[in-house]
């Protein structure tokens, strides 16, 4: 479903990615792991076109999207939840979802209800401004917003980072349901090994802007793999 080959990216003259290969099958939950600063967020931003890669190719569903603007990729079915529970802070929760719906091709109002089903807690906050929600609620809204686009693949950047444990659990369960029940393909950046072990079908470990290791969830228990993740 997603094929990334030889992806290179840089911020000005500082190169961050040195040829990353990655592939996510339909219905697969792929976890990208690695220490801080190895290029995980840069990888996702390059896949989504938020950052323009300097070399390499991103193919989604058989279509080369490397040169497409971000919003076109979203409309093709790549749902992206960037790092740091991002919302439109001055819009209400309902407006956050509506503005996203109005930017989709399908424009089906039912998509909002479906997204709210995943995080029922948000239903009580529809009229509140997103900026006033707690971090965990903002993250739920951020994921719900991505779901409104009816993605065929969900791309999540550390969805549990800095979020209170009870909501971490809700988010983990939501991701699991979306993946297992709806068969959504997921590309997940996660530092939390236990969570990755529970959710992922496969993983890649980035180090120094390259893929150092990849395999199935079972391989994550390997000592060498753990060494790569140790701080």
């Amino acid at each position, binding site marked *: 479903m997603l094929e990334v080959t030889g992806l290179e990216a840089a911020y000005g003259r500082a190169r961050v990615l040195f040829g990353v290969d990655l592939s996510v099958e339909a219905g697969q939950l792929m976890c990208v792991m690695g220490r801080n600063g190895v290029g995980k967020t840069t990888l996702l931003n390059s896949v*989504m076109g*938020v950052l323009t890669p300097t070399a390499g190719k991103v193919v989604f569903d058989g279509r080369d999207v490397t040169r497409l*603007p*971000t*919003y076109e990729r*979203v*409309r093709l079915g790549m749902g*992206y939840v*960037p790092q740091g529970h*991002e*919302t*439109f*802070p*001055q*819009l209400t929760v309902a*407006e*956050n979802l*509506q*503005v*996203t719906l*109005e*930017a*989709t091709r399908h424009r089906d109002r039912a998509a909002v209800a479906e997204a709210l089903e995943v995080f029922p807690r948000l239903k009580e906050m529809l009229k509140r*401004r*997103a*900026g*006033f*929600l707690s971090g965990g609620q*903002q993250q739920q809204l951020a994921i719900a*917003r*991505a779901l409104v*686009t009816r993605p065929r693949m969900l791309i999540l950047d550390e969805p549990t980072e800095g979020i209170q444990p009870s909501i971490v659990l809700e988010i983990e369960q939501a991701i699991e349901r979306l993946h297992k029940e709806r068969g959504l393909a997921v590309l997940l950046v996660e530092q939390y090994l236990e969570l990755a072990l529970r959710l992922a079908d496969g993983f890649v470990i980035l180090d120094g802007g390259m893929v150092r290791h990849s395999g199935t969830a079972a391989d994550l228990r390997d000592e060498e793999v753990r060494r790569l993740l140790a701080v």
Partner: protein
Amino acid sequence: MESLLNQLPIGLSIGAVLLLIALGLTFTFGQMGVINMAHGEFIMAGAYTAYMLQDWAGAQAAAVALPVAFALAGTMGWVLERTAIRHFYGRPLDTLLLTWGVSLVLQQAARDLFGAPNVQVVAPSWLNGGVTIGGGTLPYNRLFIMALAIACVAGIWAYQNRSAQGRRMRAVMQNRELAACSGVATARVDQLTFFIGSGLAGVAGVALTLIGPVGPSIGTYYIVDAFLVVVAGGLGQLRGAVIAALALGMLNSFAEFWTNASLAKVIVFAAIIVFLQFRPQGMFVLRSRALT
């Protein structure tokens, strides 16, 4: 005391003019953060639109010119955004220099087309006369400008809060990257926002023809005031712009009553400087957990 009360409607009408010329900037400067020095020349374009239409529409020119000026100034702004400004996003100083250059070119173009001397637009006959309030009269043309300002504010409010396009605009201005990640075509939103902001300058230009002569440098008289209103009101805040414009209009009219026109200007500028010392973010600010 009575003559003091007479300053009230005068202050309101000055405030309405300030508001009209500042409304466009709440879009291009307030929402998009672009310092467009050519905004004053879009005002000028609106004013000359009314002048040009006189041949065809006669005394009704000012009324007919409103939509035409909106479209013309909006298109000028759109072209400027497409050809130049969009390459300079995130570089405010470069944008300032660039648009200042454009402003000079447009002023010279106006001098070549219409001549350097001021021209006059004849106000529609139904705007002659006025209502008597207390001891003074409030001319109909001033009332018309107030009504126009109110209509524009209402229109902008409805656009921002009730339309899909306005919602998109707010989303892009609050979090551009996330808007793109939500499927919003941000570049198209920028174009429309700039079109509307510039178009409003054209409307303001038409309004100015009702209260004074039109000249190639009409924009430069008003551009500083317009920026001051937006800054004092708080960037991107419609109600801030409304209150700031009215407050400055009132201050101006009362200061002028007690002193004279040029000293009143000094007092207004001084008041703004003092105000911004204490509240550099303006009257109203976006407040939320995410931003603090």
